[in-house]
């Protein structure tokens, strides 16, 4: 069966940024997203998820390459300066190109 190349954009950020980020993803054309709570350590100290104010989430989005560009650019401009956040993209292959 054919596989269609897509991008997986992964974002790790503060739990309280959740609504902002998911709204931006939808605006930029993501058809959906997957999200879960994580702990982490980085430049802005450790986020050990003991209470929501210090909790961390990971968001994963499958999108076509152009959308991945747009998402990362938007994160860089609007979100990186304000939230504890990392983001990266990688190559994946899916079965239904029309789904994403």
């Amino acid at each position, binding site marked *: 069966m054919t596989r269609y190349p897509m991008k997986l954009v992964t974002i790790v950020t503060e739990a*309280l940024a959740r609504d902002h980020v998911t709204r931006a993803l939808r605006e930029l054309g993501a058809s959906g997203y997957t999200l879960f709570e994580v702990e982490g350590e980085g430049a802005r100290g450790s986020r050990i*998820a*003991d209470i929501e104010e210090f909790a961390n989430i990971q968001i994963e989005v499958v999108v076509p390459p152009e959308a991945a560009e747009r998402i990362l650019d938007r994160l860089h401009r609007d979100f990186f300066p304000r939230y504890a956040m990392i983001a990266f993209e990688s190559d994946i292959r899916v079965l239904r190109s029309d789904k994403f």
Partner: protein
Amino acid sequence: MTPDLLEAVRANLLTPAALFFLLGVLATVVKSDLRFPEPLYVGLTIYLLCAIGFKGGVAIAEAGLGEVWLPGLAAAVVGGAIPLWTYPVLRGLGRFKPVDAAAIAGHYGSVSAVTFIAATTFLGTIGVFYEGYAAAFLAVMESPAIIVGILLGKAAMDRTDGGAVVADPIGRALREALFGKSVFLLLGTLLVGFLSGTAGMQATAGFFVTPFQGILALFLLELGTVAGRRLGDLRRVGLFLLGFGVVVPLIHGALGVGLGYLTGLSLGGATLMGVLSASASYIAAPAAMRLSLPDANPTYYLTSSLAITFPFNITIGIPLYYGMALALYGGQP
């Protein structure tokens, strides 16, 4: 301090609630791996808010709305007004950026439910009567200051740069302030308690009353670890905020006690009004600020409310506000 006051501080420090809190702080100091899973923390928070709201609602039903509205209105007004004078202080003396000053000011006008609950168990321990419906003051004091703080911050940002790119519009901020989970739970269970009244209380006292103080103690153990873990941030926030986090509660505590006196509350009720004014939010306010003022640095408001003001109130502040009330009421309850 007078002997009475010293005795009150001692009594408060030896309640299981205060001791469990200190034990939690100790856990982080000795680097114990003690940690409550987040769902447990959330569950305990929900329980405490429901129990206090429900009991308050039953108390309103028993006392009648006529007795509650005046002090309730006063509480809401003072809550909303507090940011109006703390903001300039934070700007002028503290040299904070406008958006940071606004966010911190909003936290100190809003309230901490757990501090309130600890104060009610303190009054219970030393046998001082208080109006059961005081939980209503807690409920109405949570939102106004958050809204005022956000408005102050937005106004400041409009004057400076276009920082609002990712920030929520005012409408969302209002919704968050009014329907955020802690405000919603408090107001909602107040209403439930009001509607189901004495009969409802009888049915559920085995859950909302019997284990209440013990559950509070357990929760404070966890909050102690949360506060303890933030002790390291004290250095980062600077001496000004350290002083602010102790002095401002004292001033607001006196203010609240006076207000309680003027609106006809009992000695215990005025103490609680003092505690509420003196306390700073660490649930509703941070969530609202992070959404609506994302340019404000959360380290400032979280550290001052969670690692300075909350521990101060839970250990020494509560008996002090009680002492102020004692003095005002002429030493007799």
